[in-house]
């Protein structure tokens, strides 16, 4: 995994786990790898991974069960998608619209791009 310089690493790990849930690698009810395992895989401080897991837990994407460790929550996928949708609308779309205006593009130009 390549980390980018701008975003806190724990948030990048958070996104990374979300991607793996969306891709179906980790399914609802499945055990997620432990903090330690993911730390080793990424070569990252375990405390940083723990911070990402705490956020995943807070967002009810993963939860803990005694004896099992972390597992993926029932509607994790839906939660991730709705969060990403919100982020898209609040952050990416305004940025996109700004660029459209800058380049003098209309909605029609955009629709033409659709394959």
């Amino acid at each position, binding site marked *: 995994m390549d980390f980018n310089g*701008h975003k806190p690493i724990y948030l990048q790990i958070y996104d990374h786990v979300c991607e793996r849930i969306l891709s179906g690698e980790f399914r609802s009810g499945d055990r997620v790898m432990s903090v330690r395992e993911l730390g080793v895989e990424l070569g990252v401080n375990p405390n940083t991974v723990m911070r990402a897991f705490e956020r995943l837990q807070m967002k009810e994407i993963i939860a803990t069960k005694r004896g099992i460790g972390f597992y993926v929550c029932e509607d994790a996928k839906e939660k991730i998608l709705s969060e990403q949708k919100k982020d898209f609308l609040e952050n990416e779309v305004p940025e996109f619209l700004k660029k459209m205006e800058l380049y003098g593009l209309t909605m029609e130009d955009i629709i033409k791009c659709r394959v």
Partner: protein
Amino acid sequence: MIKINNLDFAYKNTQVFKNISLEFQKGNIYGLLGENGVGKTTLLKLICGLQKPVHGSVTVDGITPSMREPQFLQNVYFLPEEVITEDTTPEKFIQKIGVFYPRYDFALFNQLMKELEVDLSKKFNELSHGQKKKALLACAMSLQTDYLFLDEPTNGLDIPSKALFRKVISQYCSDETTVIISTHQVKDVENLIDPIVILDKDDVLMNASFAEITDKIYFEYSPERLQDAYYTEMLPGGYINVMPNTEHLESNVNIEALFNAVMKNKETIKNLMK
């Protein structure tokens, strides 16, 4: 926990530490940073009992390291920067010193040698510098001490070995261990070290976790130099600005920029992090 209280230390007439106090909590991988000659290695030597404070105290879980009691020494390992060139194989070396460490695990040694891709049949003096470093790292980690101090561990490692180094250290770390890595190669240990300790001549400028740092300091990338920045540096594609975090924004610590910012604004940042 490692507690350093009002420590003074000097080599003959050269003062190294003047009244410094500092704590290292277990369960962490500390990065020990500082310019050449500020005493990073000396501090590690004081913590593992190779040097004795002139004034003040150093204690590790209540024990004074310089008493050199077996009960302490069996739980600490210091891997110096200079590489030994003994006329022996790493395997024979670890079997010789392993007896002094109750949790020493020969199977783990073999596994680490394999993971780090070191030739098991060669003697230390037949290995390249980087291979020697990796062999010694495998030795150090197989002793499984709660306290592990590494002085410039990535010097001489090739690019793939640096990634392997991060993996094995991450694996080593548990709630009970305290790893301190002294280094100038911050890129090699990025995302691995947290908290960060920055030493200066006679002084400790910072001892803070990434969470504490980003709470107070904001790392902003911008097309031009920003006013009010503690430090700015040109990067490909713009500037990185080390700013006071007045708006409680989250950012990623750039260790090099942080270090330079601290060096340029010693008192300001020291007070800010208090």
